[in-house]
């Protein structure tokens, strides 16, 4: 089993109102969580990225954690205070250039002794584009062709030094990039930093099958996980790759307590804290695409229709079919007699693994044994202590069962993940 830690920050699962919630920006928080993950022998530490603050109706969103550092800079600093932990940065392939990013990633790999990973994401968002020279945005299909060419260009640069340390010129003339000259960083300890792809779309799965070492997914149930596994692993052969060449790691939340009943109770409390009265209305506004601030979060659902494409909620994941979601929520509310806030809690939040340490360990192990995942990216709800219980109480059980390593056996992230060093294609 592979385990990774997501730094909790800018998302709706982080509970900042808890008195134990610390800074999302001071380096001490990153150091604490990374050291905890390394104490737990995790494969890697994972940072998300932000390129534009989320907005509602032209105003900066103020109800969740706002603000975070730039990933690669934090990870280089973390390399100084950790020894083995992999260090994964989310970096957008739409608003960066291959030469610069390949150089920064190769640098991180050198400076960390072979622990760098790049989570490739793309954007089709003109809203985000307003912070960049490129301006504009790419449509969905171009996003992935650009991302694929971005990754292959980076790999040409990483491969451009011969194994005996001589630079050779690169000449890439493609649809999206035209890069020629000499790369200034020798081949790094991992050959190529580990490439992670996030996202569940068909294009994303195909891209992952062709180019990624790890796919960061979301699927709630064992059945969904098994289906995803079969689909994604089945795509690998087309690219001459084996099933072990791509690790499937869903993002999960875990709630641990002494007993299953206590854990369920704690999980319900967390869900309530994740959905403040203000956040309940805002979640609704995201679906309805209009101002619902006049509604009582503890009252019944609005009887007006959504207004899709109003541009009301920018910088957020779009709701694919607002009418269907609205209808489902209304039905749920009527059936169970739930208020707006209770309905949002019931339908929009869910912890993946809840229970005693034994229950959680068994649940995680079942996912791996039944080919629904190769491992997990844990998304704690608290900064920076949100991993303490898991590392102190669940990891030892996984180790006892032989489901998870007791010591690191290698020094690079590729070694932790059981991935071969890429063959040099000079």
């Amino acid at each position, binding site marked *: 089993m592979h385990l990774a830690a997501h730094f909790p920050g800018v998302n709706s699962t982080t509970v*900042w*109102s808890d008195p134990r919630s610390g800074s999302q*920006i*001071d*380096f001490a928080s990153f*150091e604490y969580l990374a050291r905890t993950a390394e104490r737990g022998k995790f494969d890697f530490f994972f940072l998300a990225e*932000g*390129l*534009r*603050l989320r907005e509602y109706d032209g*105003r*900066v*969103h*103020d*109800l*969740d*954690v*706002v*603000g*975070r*550092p*730039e990933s*690669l*800079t*934090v990870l*280089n*600093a973390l*390399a*100084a*205070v950790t020894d083995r932990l992999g260090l994964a940065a989310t970096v957008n392939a739409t*608003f*960066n*250039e291959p*030469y*610069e990013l390949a*150089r*920064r990633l*190769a*640098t*991180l790999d*050198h*400076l960390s002794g072979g622990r760098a990973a790049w989570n490739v994401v793309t954007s089709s968002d003109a809203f985000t584009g*307003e*912070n*960049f*020279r490129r*301006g504009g945005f790419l449509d969905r299909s171009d996003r992935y062709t650009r991302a694929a060419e971005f990754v292959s260009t980076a790999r040409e640069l990483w491969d451009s030094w011969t194994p005996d340390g001589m630079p050779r010129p690169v000449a890439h003339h493609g649809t999206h*990039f*035209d*890069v*020629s*000259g*000499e790369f*200034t*960083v*020798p081949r790094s300890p991992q050959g190529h930093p580990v490439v992670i792809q996030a996202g569940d779309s068909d294009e994303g799965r195909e891209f992952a099958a062709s180019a990624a070492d790890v796919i960061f997914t979301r699927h709630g149930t064992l059945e969904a996980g098994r289906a995803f596994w079969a689909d994604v692993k089945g795509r690998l052969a087309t690219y001459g790759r084996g099933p072990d060449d791509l690790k499937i790691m869903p993002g999960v939340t875990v709630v641990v307590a002494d007993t299953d009943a206590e854990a369920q109770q704690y999980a319900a409390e967390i869900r309530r804290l994740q959905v*403040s*009265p*203000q*956040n309940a209305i805002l979640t609704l506004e995201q679906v309805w695409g209009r101002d619902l601030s006049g509604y009582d979060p503890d009252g019944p659902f609005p009887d007006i229709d959504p207004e899709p494409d109003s541009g009301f909620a920018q910088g957020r994941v779009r709701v694919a079919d607002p009418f269907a979601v609205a209808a489902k929520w209304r039905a749920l509310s009527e059936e169970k007699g739930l208020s707006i806030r209770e309905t949002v809690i019931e339908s929009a939040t869910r912890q993946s693994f809840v229970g005693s340490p034994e229950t959680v360990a068994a649940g995680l192990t079942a996912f791996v044994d039944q080919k629904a995942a190769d491992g997990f990216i844990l998304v704690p709800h608290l900064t920076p202590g949100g991993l303490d219980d898991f590392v102190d109480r669940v990891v030892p059980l996984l180790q006892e069962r032989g489901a998870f390593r007791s010591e690191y056996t290698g020094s690079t992230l590729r070694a932790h993940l059981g991935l071969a060093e890429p063959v040099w294609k000079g």
Partner: protein
Amino acid sequence: MTTGRPLHLAAEIGGPPRYEPDHYLGLARLAEGGALDYVTLGDSFARPGPDALSVLARIAPVTDRIGLVPTVDTTHTEPFHVSSAVATLDWVSRGRAGWTADVSTTEAVARLFGRRTTAPAEALWREAGEAADAGARLWDSWEDDAEIRDTATGRFIDRKKVHHIDFEGEAFSVRGPAIVPRPPQGRPVTVIDGTTAPARAVAARHADVVHIRATSPEQAAAARADVHRLAAAHGRSARELRVLVALAVDLGDAETAPEPGLESGPPLAGHGTYFRGGPVDLAELISQWYRAGAADGFHLTPITPARDLERIVNGTVALLQHRSLFRTFHPGHTLREHLGLARPASRYALARTAGERR
């Protein structure tokens, strides 16, 4: 002491390309032991070696007081990314970050990116100035007390204190606000080498520290006065700027070389005037120039970092400390404190409170 102003000293730790962090950490700790204001790490996309900002981030948590100033290209980078990375360097170093803004003038570097050809130096420096301006606005875009964590109203930030910058330049535009909350120094320190005229114009307007080149104290004093004059045209006072003489130094093998002095030729283009001599001779030169009021300090580039930096710290700096010309410890924690530069208030906070008072 004739000036009453503290002397500032900084050193470059680059050299032949190295990829092990301990190499850079050793040099930075050496400089830190000498209580230097900051170390620089030069960079360009065509220079063999690791990314400079990443290297200084790597050593930030394992150093305490020394300022960390990587060179950052403004020609082929995104100003938004640059401002985020420099602000993050300030967070991970707890207030010790700066950056040397520089431009890429060669076609060779342009071809590594393949999205634009090179442009005249004037245009590139105008763009660098815009990048510095946009960066400073982004660093100001979060007021210091924007994060409120008000559980009663469910608000994490006070959105009145987080501002769009709506920067429209010739070369790019940035809507803002920053993703990174305002860094510990308010604004990390901006350094620009003001040797050429287009760079000096931008430095006088946007830099906190300007490096100049000179072969005599008179020449240095004239360059410093020129920087001050240009800065004044932008409403800036000399108190807001530090002007440091850039010197490449070769301290050789002997304690005192037979013929110490400055060379007029440029054996190390880009690193300032070339000094050859012993550590005592260098201390003598620094004392004389400084007492003559020629500069606020010196930025020294050892031609062989491991050898010469050790001599600078244990020879030259020790002597300057003995003469009470240079401090023996860092009295503050941040680079701005070392440089005696005030922590700037956010321009948006000032504008907002002025608006509220009206």
